[in-house]
């Protein structure tokens, strides 16, 4: 199974864009083939997050709790809940907007992703990259610039397409872009307010 692609946003951070229906989480060490690796004291494969329609279901392979309640069986995650793995590793699951099934998974405890990530995005059918609180990928504009636009990703049959809303000077691979464009790995997207690149994980 291919690893999640990494979205590198200049001045903001890096995000694992998890596109598959199942996302595995485990310990980061060489050779461990999990989708999301955490540098911490957890199992090789601690749990799996499955997309079920508009929700995400979690299935644990080691002791886990959600908001302090031990996880006994596969459970649907709700926005804002805290997952605790092996008593020490804490993750927050967030659905910034009810209009999209896409969710964000952030490390809350003093641990790190491998490679360095700001968060993991569990992609639904769309994803918003912007400065507002309903964005899946929070992307504040450079200091001194007022920006209320956004990049909207939406899934199509043959892949992901991006549409820039109020993104001045938008270019994709040095070509000015006015209409939605297909997202490809290695393509550098730039504008006056944000620039990003999607790479293989």
């Amino acid at each position, binding site marked *: 199974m291919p690893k999640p692609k990494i979205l590198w946003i200049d001045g903001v951070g890096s995000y694992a864009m998890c596109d598959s229906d199942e996302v595995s989480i485990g310990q980061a060490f060489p050779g461990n083939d999990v989708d999301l690796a955490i540098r911490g004291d957890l199992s090789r494969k601690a749990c799996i997050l499955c997309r079920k329609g508009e929700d995400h279901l979690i299935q644990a392979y080691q002791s886990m709790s959600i908001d302090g309640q031990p996880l006994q069986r596969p459970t649907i995650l709700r926005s804002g809940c805290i997952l605790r793995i092996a008593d020490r590793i804490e993750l927050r699951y967030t659905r910034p907007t009810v209009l999209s099934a896409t969710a964000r998974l952030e490390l809350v405890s003093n641990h790190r992703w491998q490679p360095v990530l700001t968060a993991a995005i569990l992609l639904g059918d769309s994803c918003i990259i912007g400065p507002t609180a309903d964005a899946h990928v929070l992307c504040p504009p450079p200091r001194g610039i007022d920006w209320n636009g956004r990049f909207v990703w939406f899934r199509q049959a043959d892949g992901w397409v991006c549409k820039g809303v109020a993104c001045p000077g938008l270019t994709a691979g040095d070509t000015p872009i006015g209409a939605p464009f297909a997202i490809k790995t290695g393509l*550098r997207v730039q504008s006056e307010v944000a620039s990003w690149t999607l790479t293989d994980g």
Partner: protein
Amino acid sequence: MKFLYGNGQRPLEGYVIRRGIGIGGFGEVYFAESDSGKEVALKRIQKNLDVEIRGVRHCLNLRHPNLVAIYDIRYDQDQQGWIVMEFIEGESLRDHLDRSTDPLAGPIHSYELGKPERILPVFAQIIAGMTYLHDQGIVHRDLKPANIFLDKGLAKIGDYGLSKYISASRRAGQTESVGTFHYMAPEIGKGEYGKEIDIYSLGIILFEMLTGTVPFDGQSTQEILLKHLTADPDLSMLPDGLAHVIAKCLAKNPTHRYRDGREMLHDLGFELSAAGFVSPLVASGPAIRPPLNGNAPTKASDQSTQTTARTTARTTAKKALGIPSNSLSTSQRIQAFFTIGIDGHREMLQREPIFQQVRSGLESIKNWFGSSSSKDSNNSIAALVAIAVILAVSGAATVLGSILGAYAIYYSLWFFGHVTAEDLRKTSWTKDSSPVSNPLAMQETVGYPTAKIRPGTTANPRSPSKPVSTKEAKRMWKAQQQQTLAQRDFWSSAHHWLQSLTFSGLIAAVASIAGGFIAVSNGYLASSNGIWNSQALGAIAWLGLMSILCSWTIVTFARRWETKQEDSIAFRFAMMVAGLILGAVSFQLSEFLLIPWSSILNASTDFQTPWFGKDFNRWLKGFYDADRLPNLAGHMAFFAALMWIVRWWRQSDALRKKKFSIWAIVWSMLMAGLVQAFFYFPSPWCLWMAGTTSLAVQIASPWIDPSHPQLARKVSEEKDAHA
């Protein structure tokens, strides 16, 4: 935000760029991975390469958990400099604070505004990092939230680009203006870059972490800089203990701030281990220290305990410091009388009823004359002295002396009965405006309640601030301007000097001729036939020439002293010596012009010194000839006394309060009258000469408007050029 390099590029051998992190004043910063997988930050130096590289090289081998580690300095194929640094995954304190004050930004993780128990452990780490730098002899010089990074509970100071070694002998060696305006210590404008500027910046940062806003803000850089120079931060919303720490950090005088980070940490309830790690202060600390280690009482049930602790510690502090709480002992009152200084007595006089009445009356008179713009108490004092001199001249010296003596005794008694401990706390009476020198304020640091500012409080762009004492503001402004004036080259100084000489000479000449007309109209110079004669013209010539010489003398000394700290005793002595020479010239001039002072004076009045009567010459007869007119010694004594008694250089000082003051002229004439009363120098000529000199000196001397923020503009221009 556009970066030069994108993901996957390899501008520097051995590293692959992943993404841009930020763009600072010196260049772009990237997150990159080495070929072996090491995560690093690469800083590409675009501007001031030499300055930055030099600063970084000094810090290359520093190791401290609260400093962003610098691994290496590398050059690419184009000889472009790159700094290889530790990559910090978290955000900068700047971003955190901005997010914390943005209600749309979502949950705040760790360091909520206004919660000292959360903020102080983080802030203590920043102090630890700064202290380590200072211990290594390095001043950061650009401490600000944007240069502080929060990484999973660790605070790290970064951006050593502007760091410089502390140089005890050349603290003012730098010419570039550095730092960020909101966090810039006031002495940076003078080119001083001691470690105190970092302490100052930390005070600003702590204030901002607690309240979400900076203490000195404004719509322009000039406004901000002027507030740094002249305004006190409004600390009323902060707990006493923290307000004390911030006030001490933000003292205008660098010597009044914390000497080092350890002292500051101690006051915040932390200490530094030998290895440089910060930890909460153990219980063996001083009793009066506030519990700032995160255990601030927050519940109502803790209030009684807190109050008891306050009272106990307060008593301890009083005993330790020897300061009674509500009243002062007799010995302290007497001591206060002699130690509070002129400003203190001036302030006490404002409350003394008789002085108030006299002052009020003088104000009324002044307003009646239409000069109500200035309400400075100096003018009142000048008017008081003027009345005293008039009384003295009119022969009422005994009465006046009795009145003043009685008032002095009354005031002393009144002072002893009314001075309080509260008065001694007033910062305007002490050189140190920080509460540190204030034992009674120190006791207020015992225990502090939970901060009154709550998370989510939005930043107030117009944070309130109150002015410091006028004296302090004026002193600082003057020091800044003197620095600027001292930077002039020789030719510029000489140009200003010659300009003043020429101008003052012309004015003195014109004023003397005008004085001659006045004299004629009053019959002082009329001969027996009522018209001008050659002797009268000679007297006018004497008046004009002596006024010019006096003006030139004053202007010359003033130009020389305008960049120096005023030393009244030394300056008066120099002026007195110059007065002796002027007196000799005056005598020779009188002889040369054959001025018959006796006939001229007889035409006006049979003036005699009132303080010594007609037998005045018993012990002063060496100064006069048989006709009771001054001889060489008399001339020299008069001019020496006149030059000594008036601080003339102030009237020519480019940094004087007002360009032209009629009071200065009146004062000069009154002082000349006072001297004349002793030496019986030909009057009113000596009064006119003093007045003419004062007039010429003031008009001809350059003047820098105190309301014009030249320093701020200069610093601003330098900053802009630097950017």
